[in-house]
């Protein structure tokens, strides 16, 4: 594994230095001074977090982190679906779900909290009984739960009382002005349904438990700023995750209408400017702007996915055999214990090589601490450490523009990093 170097970004008047869990802004004059050059030396001495330790399915020593895909059934037919939701009626078997929980609790007896993610697959709330039973099972064991559901939003009102009672964090997929085209209902108008849902949630659901996921295609890229600001002004949504659609392993996503990367970057910056100018309270979450670090790799440290096909996998895009079988962590067989050493072996042998530290393009790039090579599945599904120019293009256009604005106005940092950072002002 290569060591990444801290990155220097020329911002015109100033310079940004991006290190591991640190971001420094200073004027170009100061940077070019003898002392300024010393900054790089200082921050490259910092410790490097060991991401190869294999914290399987744990967010930390006392917190399990499990993603369940409750079903492959879906009531929408999204044109870009990464898992061909709705083409198969398979549900996750409750016994399999509880068996995996039991096995993890046996492996990690010190656990007192479980982060539960329910995602697709298909629409998770179509198998609500599994969600409810899994949550009840953990509560009966006196374990704290933090529940998150990624949903298409069409069934939320059917279960809103339970969702509120259990403090469920909802991420609702909604594509704004292109929703009717990109996320059609299977025999019904999904846009009418989602608008009704958002209107109800505005009055009846805690705003800090709601976010919207907006998938960007060529059909809505031009409307990113207005679509997102509308979510805030009409429905009180404070957190929006925005990603351009990309090809996955599913049939439907093999031909996708990805937006032009330059246009996507430009519209994201326009969105940031609009939010700052209008002083809107929002958090924008996008994979191209992550907290600077050289350690995190999404699937490896803390995620395990339980698929309806009886598999444990590192990613929601791998749900069944025949996609990328050497990344399947385990096949569920309730007659024997899960071998967690074998899982770590698969991670070490077949998954860690896709850490962005190993991408030649990232080891040379000054922005890699922030974009982190983007989603490793893009590289994995392409079959090797081949640079993915699409994501690089967005990173190279978006990150410097973003940093340049943050150099002048700290509110831009808060817009994408929330209040996660500390600020130290030296001799300013």
């Amino acid at each position, binding site marked *: 594994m290569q060591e990444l170097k801290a990155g220097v970004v020329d911002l015109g008047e100033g310079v940004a230095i991006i290190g591991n*869990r*640190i*971001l*420094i*802004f*200073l004027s170009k004059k*100061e940077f070019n001074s003898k*002392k300024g050059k*010393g*900054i790089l030396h*200082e*921050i490259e*001495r*910092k410790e490097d977090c060991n991401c190869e330790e294999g914290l399987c399915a744990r*967010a930390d020593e006392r*917190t399990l982190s499990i993603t369940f895909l409750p079903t492959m059934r879906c009531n929408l037919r999204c044109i870009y679906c*990464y898992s061909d939701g709705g083409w198969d009626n398979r549900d996750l078997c409750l016994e399999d779900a509880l068996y995996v929980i039991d096995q993890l609790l046996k492996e990690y007896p010190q656990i007192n909290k479980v*982060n539960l993610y329910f995602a*697709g697959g298909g629409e998770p709330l179509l198998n609500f009984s599994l969600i409810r039973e899994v949550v009840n099972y953990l509560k009966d064991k006196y374990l704290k739960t933090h529940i*998150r559901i*990624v949903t298409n939003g069409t069934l939320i009102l059917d279960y809103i009382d339970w969702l509120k009672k259990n403090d469920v*964090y909802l*991420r609702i997929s909604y594509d704004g002005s292109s929703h009717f085209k990109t996320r059609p209902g299977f025999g019904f108008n999904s846009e009418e349904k989602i608008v009704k849902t958002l209107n109800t949630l505005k009055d009846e659901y805690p705003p*800090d438990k709601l976010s919207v*996921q907006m*998938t960007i295609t060529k059909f809505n890229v031009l409307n990113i700023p207005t679509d997102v600001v509308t979510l805030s002004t009409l429905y009180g949504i404070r*957190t929006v*995750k925005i990603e351009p*659609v*990309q090809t*996955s392993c599913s049939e439907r996503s093999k031909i996708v209408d990805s937006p032009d990367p330059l246009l996507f970057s430009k519209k994201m910056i326009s969105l940031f400017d609009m939010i700052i100018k209008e002083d809107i309270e929002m958090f924008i*979450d*996008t*994979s*191209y702007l*992550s*907290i*600077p*670090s050289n*350690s*995190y790799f*999404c*699937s490896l440290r*803390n995620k395990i996915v339980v698929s309806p096909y009886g598999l444990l996998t590192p*990613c*929601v*895009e791998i749900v069944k055999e025949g996609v990328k079988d050497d990344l399947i962590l385990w096949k569920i067989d309730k007659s024997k214990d899960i071998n967690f050493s074998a899982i770590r072996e698969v991670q070490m042998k077949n998954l860690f090589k896709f850490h962005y530290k190993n991408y030649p393009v990232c080891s040379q790039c000054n922005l890699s601490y922030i974009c*982190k090579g983007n*989603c490793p599945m893009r590289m994995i599904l392409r079959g090797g450490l081949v640079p993915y120019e699409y994501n690089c293009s967005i990173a190279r256009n978006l990150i410097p523009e973003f940093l340049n604005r943050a150099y002048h106005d700290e509110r831009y940092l808060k817009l*994408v*990093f*929330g209040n*996660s*950072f*500390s*600020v*130290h*002002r*030296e*001799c300013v």
Partner: protein
Amino acid sequence: MMAIINSLKAKLGIPMVIYSWKKEHIDGKVDENILGAAHPGCCKQ
């Protein structure tokens, strides 16, 4: 992290603004609601 920041202060003493993150934020376990900010993946969930 503070050691690095103090070292920067002591050795350099030039005007700059330093933003820093605790290790916990990188693992997304401090504020799960901003999980995506630390996580590049899960783009299309």
